[in-house]
């Protein structure tokens, strides 16, 4: 209601708009959208109110009542029980390293393919495209076997290596199409200045393409953070688990009651929400990056 009040003066200027404002259909549509939005976020709201509800209040009020007082013990208990700080650190260090290395590898590949236009580049691009499409199931057993042979099984290093390559396959594909359009004048100027290929890469190409690199970094970080299948297979010991694996394997645990389960859900949602808020602008730009040619 405050919204219409605020907008009223502007709309009264033209009779056509005033007429539209009176159209009851507008509010039917808005109400329908709000109802749909409520359905979409209701599961998260229910998790949030039950995460801060004591088991006693839950028993008397059920899942839909608002907690009469805030109760943090469920969250604290769960945090301590799974050593959540450690899982957060594992997830963070893995995702961050993969994002940095993945962007670096994408830059090197795309420099050779997009700007250097090396021979057979179409085939390299087809390879990276297919690599993107592969289901991880077709790679998982040999990777599991090889990492055991190499003594890297149940170690974050194996996860970092694997995801760096997988994410860089996407990054190479995207970044090559960006570098193909790279302004030649800048490269020629660097040539004239006598800069070598590596210098040109670091002091011309990378700074100019920084916005795209930022999008890639964000993607790689969040994707790696949310990865479930390979970390589930590779990170078997408690000390090495990432957040999704720790939460995933606790599902169905008999010791988890209703409020503790929602507490675990809430502390799993919070980091994701935080990234969403931090990266929102880069993300909405980046999600569409794949679609624009």
């Amino acid at each position, binding site marked *: 209601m405050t919204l219409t009040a605020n907008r009223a003066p502007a709309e009264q200027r033209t009779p056509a708009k005033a007429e539209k404002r009176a159209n009851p259909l507008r509010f039917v549509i808005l109400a329908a959208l709000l109802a749909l939005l409520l359905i979409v976020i209701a599961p998260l709201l229910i998790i949030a109110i039950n995460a801060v509800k004591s088991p006693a209040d839950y028993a008397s009020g059920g899942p839909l009542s608002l907690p009469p007082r805030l109760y943090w013990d469920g969250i604290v208990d769960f945090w301590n029980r799974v050593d959540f700080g450690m899982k957060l650190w594992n997830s963070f260090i893995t995702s961050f390293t993969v994002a940095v290395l993945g962007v670096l590898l994408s830059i090197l590949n795309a420099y050779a393919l997009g700007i250097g236009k090396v021979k057979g580049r179409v085939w390299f691009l087809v390879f990276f495209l297919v690599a993107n499409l592969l289901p991880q199931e077709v790679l998982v057993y040999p990777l599991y076997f090889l990492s055991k042979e190499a003594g890297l099984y149940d170690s974050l290093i194996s996860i970092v290596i694997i995801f760096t*390559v997988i994410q860089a396959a996407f990054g190479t594909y995207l970044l090559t199409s960006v570098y193909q359009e790279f302004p030649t004048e800048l490269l020629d100027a660097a040539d004239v200045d006598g800069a070598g290929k590596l210098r040109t890469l670091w002091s011309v190409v990378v700074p100019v393409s920084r916005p795209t690199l930022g999008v890639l970094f964000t993607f790689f970080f969040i994707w790696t953070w949310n990865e479930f299948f390979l970390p589930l297979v590779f990170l078997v010991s408690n000390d090495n688990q990432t957040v999704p694996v720790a939460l995933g394997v606790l599902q169905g645990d008999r010791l988890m009651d209703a409020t503790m389960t929602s507490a675990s859900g809430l502390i799993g949602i919070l980091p994701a929400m935080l990234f969403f808020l931090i990266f929102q602008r880069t993300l909405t730009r980046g999600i569409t990056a794949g*679609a624009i040619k």
Partner: protein
Amino acid sequence: MRRKGYWPFLIPGVLASVLVIVVPLVMTVYTSFTKWNGVGEQRWIGFDNYTRLFDDSLFWSSFGNIVLLILAMAVVPTLLGLFLAAVLFDYVAKKFSSRWASLFRSGFYLPQVIPVAVTGIVWGWILHPEYGALNRILDTIGLGSLAHNWLGEPGSALYSVMGIMIWVQLGYPIVMFMAGLQRVDPELYEAADLDGATWWQRFRKITVYLIRPEFYVVLVTTTIAALKIFGPIFVLTGGGPSNATLVPSYFAYKNFFEKAQVGYGSAISTVLTVLIIALSIVFLRLQNRAERKA
């Protein structure tokens, strides 16, 4: 000026890709022609795994389930997302304000940013037969007779998973399509308005027509995501009850790590891979043809 001598920059990428992608891929394809439990000797058995696969009713039902999941993860979100994106972009943003439109967009996108394990917790909890919120809500509004074990009964498990996946996926097409609509020249809409076109006519003739590139991208990526689905199945149902929600990737996982039938698991994942690549080629062809016509 033609640039030369850039191939050394490819060396790290090629070496790493060979190690992590090419070698494992070749090993899996090779293993699919052998009988192997993962530790002992690997014995060549030709096409036996594949003939067994085509006689395995679980394999066929896992693909049947995938068809329904493509409906829930690709078809429904794409169509619903197209409609919602058009309403948000062309109606809400104009008749209310663009702030409302982006608020709705962010809200619908929220389930996309949540890790799959957490999606499993959230929905496993809401659909729980004893303390789940959905059964409580049904009780409260007098529909208690509808309450049941949503994810635990073979009759409803797959449909519950489908509903959850629509919830997860919806935000992605909305964001993509709203971005695509920004490319559309507003004068086209004004011209249509002057010609007395209804909103629905404009939607069909202008909106849908102009964002076909995004439409294809969304349909391809969500279909491939549906074919690969693993995490949601693992955390929601574990493929059960009595294999009612079994999907190929989970079927392969079980053979690899629970039954130690590595050869058979490799055959399943090889078939899945071939299917994904074939489908992508078909989609790319269709997209190219559509673009040439335009």
